[in-house]
């Protein structure tokens, strides 16, 4: 709210609604910022090969990459749910020494360059990695440059989004419901499963969508840890990057698909975030 402007209407100046003027010094950069964010998307739509689009999108390569992307992102989200929700519960509901540090470490992949994450994964789970060498020697399991490797790389990058979202919801949820469940004879796990989980379901769903979107767009960690093999580890973002060098039209088509998916995700989260402001 701006304070009421001094009355400059001397005599018969036209009466009109009081201007809640936006200072020019703010308006200009704001519009510039908006244009900067929108322009690339507009360019994508302008240069899209609309006439050859059906053909591009039905090519087996595109389908292969899209299917692999969806499978991997969904698997990564599922894995994040299985191990991320309990982790969020631990961070929100228990008190142990060094909890703050653990929380910081959990969120580290949020700010870590994904390529670094990929390198770290290689050092941990690669054939000669800290854990990877034992996996290889004892079980014959090789993770890097496999589809499983893609899932792991995406999980590493995407899970923090889920953990943070779920932890926030848990903190906002009334822990006394769990106490009420306990006094009714529920073990702590039963209380979590039958009371807490349904109560925080919206937060889990939002976190899962966020993690899924992040996993779908993952590039750096995936290409570093899992490589770029069509049909095995080449997800959509990798295919876009590769196609840009040989077949720009295909790259644009693939980008349009990812853009459409992103918009769909945003629309799905509309009620939760767009109106929260």
């Amino acid at each position: 709210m701006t304070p009421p402007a001094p009355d400059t209407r001397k005599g018969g100046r036209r009466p009109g609604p009081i201007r809640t003027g936006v200072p020019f010094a703010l308006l200009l950069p704001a519009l510039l910022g908006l244009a900067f964010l929108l322009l690339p998307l507009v360019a994508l739509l302008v240069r899209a090969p609309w006439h050859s689009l059906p053909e591009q999108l039905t090519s087996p390569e595109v389908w292969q990459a899209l299917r692999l992307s969806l499978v991997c992102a969904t698997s990564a989200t599922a894995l994040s749910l299985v191990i991320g929700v309990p982790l969020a519960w631990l961070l929100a509901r228990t008190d142990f020494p060094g909890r703050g540090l653990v929380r910081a470490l959990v969120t580290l992949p949020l700010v870590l360059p994904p390529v670094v994450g990929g390198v770290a994964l290689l050092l941990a789970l690669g054939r000669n990695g800290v854990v990877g060498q034992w996996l290889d020697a004892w079980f014959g399991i090789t993770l890097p440059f496999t589809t499983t490797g893609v899932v792991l790389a995406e999980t590493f990058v995407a899970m923090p989004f889920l953990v943070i979202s779920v932890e926030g919801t848990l903190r906002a949820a009334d822990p006394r419901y769990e106490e009420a469940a306990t006094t009714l004879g529920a073990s702590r796990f039963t209380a979590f499963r039958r009371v807490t989980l349904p109560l925080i379901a919206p937060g889990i769903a939002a976190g899962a969508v966020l993690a899924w979107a992040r996993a779908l767009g993952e590039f750096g960690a995936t290409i570093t840890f899992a490589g770029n093999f069509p049909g095995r580890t080449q997800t959509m973002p990798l295919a876009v990057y590769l196609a840009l060098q040989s077949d720009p039209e295909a790259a644009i088509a693939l980008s349009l698909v990812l853009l459409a998916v992103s918009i769909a995700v945003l629309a799905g989260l509309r009620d939760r975030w767009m109106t929260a402001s």
Partner: protein
Amino acid sequence: MSTPDGIPPDSAEGLDSHVVVDRDAFRLDITLSAAPGEVVALLGPNGAGKTTALRALAGLVPLTGGHLRLDGDALERTPPESRPVGVVFQDYLLFPHLSALDNVAFGPRCHGASKAEARSQAAGWLERMGLAEHAGARPRSLSGGQAQRVALARALATHPRLLLLDEPLAALDARTRLEVRAQLRRHLAEFEAVAVLVTHDPLDAMVLADRLVVVEHGTVVQQGAPSDIARHPRTDYIAQLVGLNLYRGRADGHTVHLDTGPSLTTTEILSGPAFVAFPPSAVTLHRDRPTGSSARNLWRCEVAGLETHGDQIRADLTGELPLAADLTTVAAAELDLHPGAPVWATVKAAQTHAYPA
């Protein structure tokens, strides 16, 4: 259910507890016993430690010391889910994602009943509470009184041997409160095990409980039958609750010399430390010093505050003897009472009540 002096008979049956909880600078240290079928109210001001005591009995707060035995079984190390204790929480904490029926069925389910069995038990409880037609309702669509009964049914459905109620009527508006209080009294009367309720409302406590335990600053300051406590308050807090002026002093025959200076004439003959109590309605106010008045209890006071109290006016007086006096609006107008106005207050000895401290 209790012996004449208000202390339950010593036996292995029922609740026998000494609850000690240390938290930061606060220490709760109360002894609480009750016979099966007895309803005990923990009454006290906010922050006295009542709710902490309740949570300790439920196992939600660990005991720092003391003991907790229920029908002879030691429970102080038992986790809350294994205690035969039911709790009705202050704002009920009905699970918002479950119907009333499934809320009540939750306990039996956790105790091993099949889904169908738990639901049929729950339906029986809702029936008894007169809520059969609301079985499918979500908590948010229930009225306050209905939610309270669902919470009670949920707690009772596990057949607890100790039922705890935390401010069971505090969340209700004045009108429903009256009705729900009567219902709750009926349900508690039917309950065969020990019931402990926490409240800061003396009326709730007196209507619902067989025995009051008054807690202040983490300790028990007085306990006994409601009528006994109402007649013989031993702290300012209780005296205020039951609407009495209360003074402590040393009795010498018909006179009680107060620690603060003035003395009071009473009808009882006592000696040694004593309390004197009288209701605000026993006080008569005068603008000028009354002459020829038979009242020997005469003090010069000043009006500190006035407030309407039903159709009466309650005058808060300071001066020689701080006291509360009730008078009609007409009398207040005639006396020209206003804050700062000087008045003379008299109390007839026959209307005071002295008892040993």
